[in-house]
């Protein structure tokens, strides 16, 4: 600790250079924070998907329906503890850019299968009692300034006309990463209001008693409905979510590539700064050694400078990214789970520290191995 003032004095020897380097690291880590947030958002469904839940959809395509009658038959399959269903609605609120997922749900079973969504019992009962009632996630409610009791008009797309709902409840996810952007309403309301597709649902979500039975149950389900007019394709919710995310491309690979380029650039920037700092101070390093500072102490002093620059820049960048994500989804609904977790913030700072160590190591070793007589000759 007693060397810290000396380290800081050296850092502010060339203020502009230090500030620019810290700024470069901050920008890089800000970018890193955003990339991680986007990646998490795109894969949010995968991360929080239940391993004990299966998605049963029409084998031809997700947009093809399944009969409502399948619910009871699904419940009869071994290891299935509950089966619920939902249908995609796809309406818009005021303008097409106001996108958020809307599902017509089976109100009797949905909460049993998705216990992670928390709703006050009072609000849930009010929803059940109102055929035109709706439940919305906290994020979407905040986005549009909706409150319980509001009347929400949605403009249908594939189901034409204006659909009006009474907002009866607002749910919250119990885990970070839970999707709080959904809009639910009664499947019966949809069924009674539409002229076609009556008696069908979009897909089923099946809860099984043990995740180890996922493969066997998936097979049993698809066999049960094989050779019927509505053949099924069943997979775990996690595999389903991953497949959904993959439709946008290999986001993780893309993010890793960009991240690697950013980190490599960071290494060059920080390494160059430290190399210049050491080159300019060779005689001073010689003086320090003359005074009795050991080679390792000199190594530590140079590394400490590199670490301070990298840690400060990294923390600043991560903090800026956090502040940015606090503003919520900037895309208007495409990234519903838009937040930077504490773990990811710490990871970002650790990356910055590692960059500082690696970038500072060569200049620090140069300083350590400097011969005093050679260094003093450069005065």
């Amino acid at each position: 600790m007693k060397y810290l003032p000396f380290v800081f004095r050296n850092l502010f020897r060339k203020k502009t250079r230090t500030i620019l380097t810290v700024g470069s690291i901050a920008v890089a880590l800000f970018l890193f924070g955003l990339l991680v947030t986007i990646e998490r958002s795109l894969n949010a469904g995968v991360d929080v998907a239940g391993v004990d839940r299966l998605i049963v959809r029409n084998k031809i395509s997700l947009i093809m329906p399944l009969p409502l009658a399948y619910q009871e038959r699904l419940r009869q399959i071994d290891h299935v503890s509950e089966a619920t269903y939902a249908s995609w609605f796809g309406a818009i609120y005021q303008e097409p850019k106001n996108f958020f997922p809307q599902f017509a749900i089976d109100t009797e079973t949905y909460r049993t299968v998705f216990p992670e969504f928390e709703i006050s019992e009072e609000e849930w009962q009010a929803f059940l009692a109102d055929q035109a009632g709706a439940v919305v996630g906290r994020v979407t409610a905040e986005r549009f300034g909706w409150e319980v009791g509001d009347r929400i008009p949605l403009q249908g797309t594939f189901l034409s006309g204006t659909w009006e709902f009474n907002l009866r409840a607002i749910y919250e996810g119990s885990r970070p990463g839970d999707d709080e952007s959904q809009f639910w309403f009664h499947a019966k309301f949809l069924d009674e209001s539409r002229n076609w597709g009556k008696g069908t649902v979009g897909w089923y979500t099946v809860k099984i008693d043990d995740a180890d039975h996922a493969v066997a149950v998936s097979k049993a389900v698809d066999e049960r409905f094989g050779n019927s007019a509505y053949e099924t394709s069943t997979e775990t919710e996690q595999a389903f979510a991953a497949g959904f995310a993959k439709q946008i491309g290999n986001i993780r690979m893309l993010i890793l590539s960009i991240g690697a380029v950013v980190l490599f650039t960071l290494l060059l920037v920080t390494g160059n700064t430290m190399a210049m700092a050491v080159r300019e101070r060779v005689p001073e390093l010689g003086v320090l050694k003359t005074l009795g500072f050991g080679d390792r102490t000199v190594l530590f002093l140079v590394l400490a400078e590199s670490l301070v620059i990298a840690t400060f820049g990294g923390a600043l960048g991560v903090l800026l990214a956090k502040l940015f994500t606090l503003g919520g989804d900037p895309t208007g609904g495409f990234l519903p789970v838009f937040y930077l977790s504490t773990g990811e913030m710490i990871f970002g700072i650790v990356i910055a520290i590692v960059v500082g160590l690696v970038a500072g190591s060569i200049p620090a070793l140069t300083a350590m191995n400097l011969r005093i007589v050679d260094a003093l000759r450069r005065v």
Partner: protein
Amino acid sequence: MVSIDGKEHHNSLVRVRNLSKLYRRGGETINVLQGLNLDVEKGEFVAFMGPSGSGKTTLLNLLGGLDTPTSGTVTVDGDEITNMSGRNLASWRARHVGFIFQMYNLIPVLTAFQNIELPLLLTKLSKAQRRQHVETALTLVGLGDRMKHYPRQLSGGQEQRVAIARAIVTDPTFLLCDEPTGDLDRKAAEEILDLLTELESNHGKTILMVTHDPLAAERADMTLHLDKGALVEAAS
């Protein structure tokens, strides 16, 4: 008493025996020091003179453990430094040697106080104890009112005073001065020499000084000339 005959002297603080240093430059071998002997007792002030390239600074570097000889030994206060590891040599320097350079070699981003405090960071002294030592050293060199000044805010003479304070703050066994007045005007040089003389006479410091300046050499108890890699007694 200063001696260059290589005979045993029991009271020697600094004892140099058969010290040689060769440099290879290109294909050529240069014998800078050749079989040099020296004995210096505690509290003596010795000046080394000689033409450029005669090996004065090389000798000082070897005495201060900044460089290693090709052959021979340097023993200071019973410690033979020529066989010490780099790590031990660094801590030995911190405890036993005070260096004063021609160009002062202060750290520009540190105040006078912080420059003087630097060698004390290597000790186990508390912050308060370090402060006390620094203030004492600054007062001794007559710069008690300049402790918050940066080197650029000081004159050459004042900078050298700060460098002297830095050299004596750990109360080292001896001081090694490499042309301490070489970059100063006459008046400032005289003040620095007064200070060095005072350190020797009033505080019992052993001082080994390399200089080109005959007036500076006059302040020493003895002046030795380096000629063709060997020491020659000049005056006392």
